Each structure stands twice: as C-alpha cells, then as structure tokens.
C-alpha cells in the first residue's frame, strides 16, 4: 500500500548514496518493525482473499468456520478504508497544493480544514450516514469527506516550512515556473510525510469503519465487515465469531502504526540533512 516514492535521482547518484544519503525506501527498510508491519499487513490482505476460498466460506451460513468468516469480513473493511484513504488523501493533496500556491482560496480552504479538524469524526459520520443511508459507496464517500482536512493541514505545514529554503529561493531566482518548483523541489520533500500520514490514516479509518459498522450505520445489513461481524445479532455459534474479527482488526491497525512510524523516521532523517 502506502510505500514512499523515492525522489528522482540519476543512477550515478544512486550508487554513490549508499551511506550518507540513502533513499527514502532504503531508510524505511532499515526500521525493522515497519518492514514487518508492511509484510504482515500485505499477508493479512492476501489471506482475506485466500482463506474464505480455501475454507469454502458461505456468508449466509450461521455455523461457518469463524476463521473463514473473520478473514472474509476483512475484505470489505480493507476495501472501504483503502478507498476512503485514496479518495480523501488525494483530494487533500490537491487542495493543499492549491493552498500552497494561491493565497486567497488557499486561506479559505485552510480555514475550513482547521475548523473540521477540531471535530470528532464519529458523530459527524453517523449523522451523515443516517441522512444518506448505509452503504459501501456512501461509507467511502463520508470517510473521505472526513479525511481530507488531515492531509491538507499536513501538506500545508510542510510546504510552509520549506517554502523559504535557499534552494527554493534559488530556483525562483532562476525563473523556474511555480509548477516546476512544486514538482521538483517541494513535493519530493512532502510526499514521504504524506505517505507516513496515510499509513496512520489507514489504521484510523479501519478502526472508524469498524465502529460505524458495529453501530449499524456503515455497511448494509447482512454484509460482513470487521465492525458488523461482531454485532451480537443473528445466531452466534461460538465466541470466536466475535473474538477473531476484532483481533484481526487490531493486528491490521497495529501494522499501520508500525509502517507509519517507519515512514515518519525517513522524513525525520530527511529534515536533518
């Protein structure tokens, strides 16, 4: 999922940069827990596809294998969180670039983002979903709506921090266009932070989706996600039916925290350079 894009560099520079200036990817690989988190999360995503197929899972059957059921539920949770993350952070990144380049609209967007950030996400999500009705599509859209201010604030802060650096000023003095400055000099320094933020955001979206679907406002009735799988309605045949989905969700969230920490470290090293 959210792997940081290494900054563009020529092949020669790449070879020379083994110790002092390593790429973002190399720096990420150096943080073991982050790498393990990434592997486990990918494995978990793979298992949500494989396990129900192998175990012959029937979502309608009450006495289904709890493991197959828990992994099956993960499909929808991961899909919704990932969709909302792409949509929300994509919108956020675009808006943040507008914020960073133009003053007037930028301040307005920044103000709206800041005001939204003070609000807890769950009640707003519940109100919106109660108004628009439950559903996978509406859940993704609502989560994305709540997500974008986060990305805007992060990118805005980062852009402000490096906007006055000497190399940016030098590029400006050399008459580089604002688009060139953005893609060559600003974005490469912002994207690792965006990736770290996205990794953490993926986990919190998973947890938020779980809470919403658990309360019955998220995925439509009858469909399984990690949240709706632990609702106490229907026929429960074993305790594992509610223990396992929560455990898998916890592990997925833990993985995103580790990945986020690993990515954060790469950005820290960058700032010190």
């Amino acid at each position: 999922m959210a792997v940081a894009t290494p900054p563009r560099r020529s092949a020669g520079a790449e070879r020379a940069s083994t110790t002092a200036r390593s790429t973002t990817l190399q720096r990420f690989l150096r943080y073991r827990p982050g790498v393990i988190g990434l592997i486990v999360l990918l494995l978990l995503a793979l298992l949500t596809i494989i396990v129900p197929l192998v175990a012959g899972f029937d979502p309608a059957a009450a006495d289904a294998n709890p493991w197959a059921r828990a992994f099956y539920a993960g499909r929808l949770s991961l899909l919704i969180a990932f969709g909302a993350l792409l949509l929300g952070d994509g919108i956020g990144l675009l808006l943040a670039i507008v914020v960073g380049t133009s003053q007037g609209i930028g301040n307005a967007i920044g103000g709206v983002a800041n005001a939204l950030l003070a609000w807890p996400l769950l009640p707003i999500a519940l109100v919106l979903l109660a108004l628009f009705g439950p559903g996978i599509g509406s859940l993704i859209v609502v989560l994305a709506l709540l997500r974008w201010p986060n990305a805007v604030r992060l990118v805005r802060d980062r852009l402000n921090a490096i906007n006055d650096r000497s190399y940016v000023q030098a590029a400006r003095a050399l008459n580089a266009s604002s688009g060139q400055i953005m893609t060559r000099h600003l974005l490469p320094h912002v994207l690792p932070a965006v990736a770290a933020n996205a990794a953490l955001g993926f986990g919190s979206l998973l947890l938020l989706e779980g809470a919403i679907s658990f309360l019955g406002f998220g995925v439509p009735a009858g469909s399984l996600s990690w949240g709706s799988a632990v609702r106490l309605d229907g026929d429960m045949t074993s305790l594992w039916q509610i223990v396992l989905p929560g455990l898998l969700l916890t592990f997925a969230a833990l993985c995103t925290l580790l990945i986020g920490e690993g990515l954060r470290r790469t950005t820290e090293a960058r700032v010190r350079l």
Partner: protein
Amino acid sequence: MTGTVGDRALRALIAFVVAAIAIVLLLQLVPQVGGGWTTSWALQPGMSVVQIIASFLPNTLLVVLLATLISAPLATLLGTRAGIRSRAPLLDSLTLFGASLPVFWLGLMLAIVALQMGPGFLLVGEIGPTRPGTGDINQIADALLLERVLGAVLPALTLSMVGIATVSRWVRSSVRETQDRPYVQMARARGLPQQVINQRYARSASHSLSSALIRALPALVGGTIVVETVFGYPGLGWLFVQALRSNDWPIVAGLLLLLALLIAIATTLDGVVRGNARRRTYA
C-alpha cells in the same frame, strides 16, 4: 495576556456560530415528520430536548470523569518513564498495541467477561448495539445512583485503556523533546541527581498533559458514543445513537450544538494553555 485570551474566545465564538449554522443547514435535509425542533419526535414525544439532554448529561460526565481519573495519572507515569529512557521496548509495544485496539471490540470483550461473573455484574443495560426498544427515557435516566456508578465502571475502564495508550505516547514524545532542552542539559552538566532531572521532565510532561487532554477530546467523544452503546449505559452517547436510529432529529441537533459548544471552549482553553507553556519554556 487578556488580549490574546479575548482574541481566542472571539475566534472560538465565531467558529461556534459557523458550526451552528452548518448544523441547521444540514438538518434542512431531514424529512420533517414531527413537530417543532424543541421537543423530541420519537424517543419521548413532546418532551423538551433540553430536559432530555440534561437528564442524561450527569451519567456521561460520570463516565468521562472516571476515565480521566484512571488514565491521566497512569498515562503521565508511563509516558514519562518511557520518555526518560532512550529505549523502552516493552512500554512502547504495549502502548502501540493499546492504541490499535478497537474500542467497540474491547468493550465487548470486557462485557463478556463481566457476564461470566454473574447476572448484572457491573452492567446496567443490555449489551450490544442491537437494543431495539426505546424504553422509558425517564426511567433510564433516573436509575439509582449506585446503579449508575457501578454501570459507569466498565465503560470508563474501556475508555481509559485506549486513552492511556494514546496519551502516554504524546507524553513520551514531549519528554523526549525536553531531553534536548538547554535547561535539562545544564542540569545534567551540573551533576544534579537523576531524580531532580526526572522531576523537571515530569513538570514539562504535565504541561503537555493538560494540552493532551484537550487534544484527546475528539477521541473521547467518539469513544463515549461507542462505549455507552456497547454497555447499554444511558449517557449522551447512547442517547445520540438511539436518537439517530429512531430519527429523533431534534435530539440529534441538540447534542450536536452541545458538542460545538464544547469544542469552542476546548480550543480556547487549548490556546491559553499552550500560550502559557510556551511563555514558560522560552522565558
């Protein structure tokens, strides 16, 4: 000083008014079925919204107070300890695990354990989000004090587990930052005993703690909604979910306005606290 506080209060007031207008606009989408916007439509038809919210408020305050009393000291202690050492793998992994726990699931697990302890052990309501009926609101809100206090224990415990994990990580990073501050390096250079230095860490952590408690407000509100619903505990979060489920929009609107007010107050306080802390650090 007064200028900045007034300035912040004014800004918070503007934010509150904007939020209130947004809430009113949003509620124009609601299909108008019941009567006016001041009385309940479905849960307790005809009863004043203010009265209903006021009768549920004490229960939520009890849960939040209890959770804060449990989590604030523990979070400070753990966060400071983890921050002082350069490496604290056990504490780090414990808090990481705690921060990844889904509140609704953790609450459910605790509820199941409580159910094993015997009927009605620390539980006042029915467990789970599927509680169908509305019940008599008055009866629920007027439950015995002892029953309310006992019922608040498990929700508060669930909330504080997640709270400790999150807040202690903030405290830890603030203590780590403090280690590089000149006055701490100075203290170390003077050869002051570690205990004295630790006290200075703790003081710095306590500054960030008050700010952290305000920063934790959004998570606390979300957590209260989930936890109260899981345990069927009659507080504002439970009321919110029930009102949404039965399309009782005046109650929803009232609760959202209350939340907007709370946020306005919290952001003002946060600004004041941070301003004070900054002054002290750089003075």
